[in-house]
């Protein structure tokens, strides 16, 4: 169910979905996925160190948003079905195929409270090798794209990403803009926060960066701004 504001008498302007900020985009170095780690339950932080990016197999990770239990379950079911496909057909299913499989598995539950909004980030092998990025939602949406952000913090993340994501980014630049997008979203969105996880998918599989505390990022930025103000010689406070 969606988290409600503390007073329900004022209706929400639009359905606030999925207390989370996750994002993923394609660039020349592969696919980058990033997510916060705050697991919320109405107004409570149920877990400050959850894992919202789940590896599905060696060359596919999925970001999760919605109900944590539903996401964990369906990701495991997807891993199982993909492994069965690989054993039966002798090759890995493509990212688009995995997305379609997940979409069709979720379709019978449409109209129920099941809530899963995932982006599948993978590297396809075989004849059509290359990166793949698909957004799959339990309402039936399945979209292919180069950049997606999902969750209550996603509008904030989109604005940062739309300013800087290009195909030609280096891995460091891509990591940096993904981290900043999650940071700014967690700053504004109450239901996102704590840490940021970043995964990078390449032809050799996925790699994971050490989890970073966004509280540190806040103080680092405060320090950077202070130094810049001193450099410019102004004394006005922010």
């Amino acid at each position: 169910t969606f988290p409600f504001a503390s007073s329900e008498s004022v209706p929400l302007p639009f359905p606030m979905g999925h207390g989370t900020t996750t994002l993923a985009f394609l660039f020349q170095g592969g696919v980058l996925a990033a997510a916060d780690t705050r697991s919320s339950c109405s107004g409570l932080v149920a877990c400050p160190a959850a894992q919202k990016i789940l590896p599905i197999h060696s060359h596919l990770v999925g970001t999760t948003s919605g109900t944590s239990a539903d996401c964990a379950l369906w990701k495991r079911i997807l891993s199982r079905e993909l492994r069965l496909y690989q054993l039966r057909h002798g090759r890995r299913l493509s990212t688009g195929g995995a997305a379609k499989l997940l979409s069709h598995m979720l379709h019978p539950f449409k109209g129920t409270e099941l809530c899963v909004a995932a982006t599948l980030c993978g590297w396809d092998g075989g004849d059509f090798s290359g990166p793949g990025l698909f957004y799959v939602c339990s309402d039936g949406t399945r979209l292919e794209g180069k950049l997606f952000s999902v969750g209550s913090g996603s509008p904030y993340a989109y604005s940062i990403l739309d300013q800087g994501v290009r195909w030609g980014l280096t891995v460091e630049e891509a990591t940096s803009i993904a981290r900043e997008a999650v940071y700014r979203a967690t700053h504004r969105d109450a239901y996102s926060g704590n840490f940021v996880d970043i995964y990078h998918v390449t032809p050799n599989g996925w790699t994971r960066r050490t989890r970073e505390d966004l509280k540190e990022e806040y103080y680092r930025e405060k320090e950077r701004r202070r130094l810049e103000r001193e450099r410019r010689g102004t004394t006005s406070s922010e």
Partner: protein
Amino acid sequence: MEYLIGIQGPDYVLVAADNVAASSIIQMKHDYDKMFKLSDKILLLCVGEAGDTVQFAEYIQKNVQLYKMRNGYELSPSAAANFTRKNLADYLRSRTPYHVNLLLAGHDDADGPGLFYMDYLASLAKAPFAAHGYGAFLTLSILDRYYRPDLTRDEAVDLLKKCVEELNRRFILNLPSFNVRLIDKDGIHDMEKISIGTK
């Protein structure tokens, strides 16, 4: 939100759909194609509830292809439209109705061009021009005013551009670009996308 439009001429059908795939207040994609190719000369334009659109349209698409494999010849546009309507009607009073609004456009060697309007309540109407979405409220009167049964292809594209201009002027939502396709006896032709800047 979403917008579909179709204009039938003496020997062609011109159709267009917007390119936005939205989720709540966010545009998730700016280049989404809402047209589904049922056969070499039939297009199904589909808007409505997320998920229902693709599931229903692909179901119809695969069944039309299956008919061709089984029987050796393709369904006519009129037959495909009636098949689609029957499916909508059968699901309407089930536990899982499909909330989709459709335009089916096609060219038949025997009957000529045809444009069929269907909505989520499983109504079906063959029409010379039709539109779906909030944008239809703004553009149907333009079509009423300027449509003639003997429009040339260029005149039909100009009429389409008039409709898009009006949407850009008065419609509250931003629909930056539209896919345009034309169906005639030679099949489906992709035409130049209409964007905010095109004249």
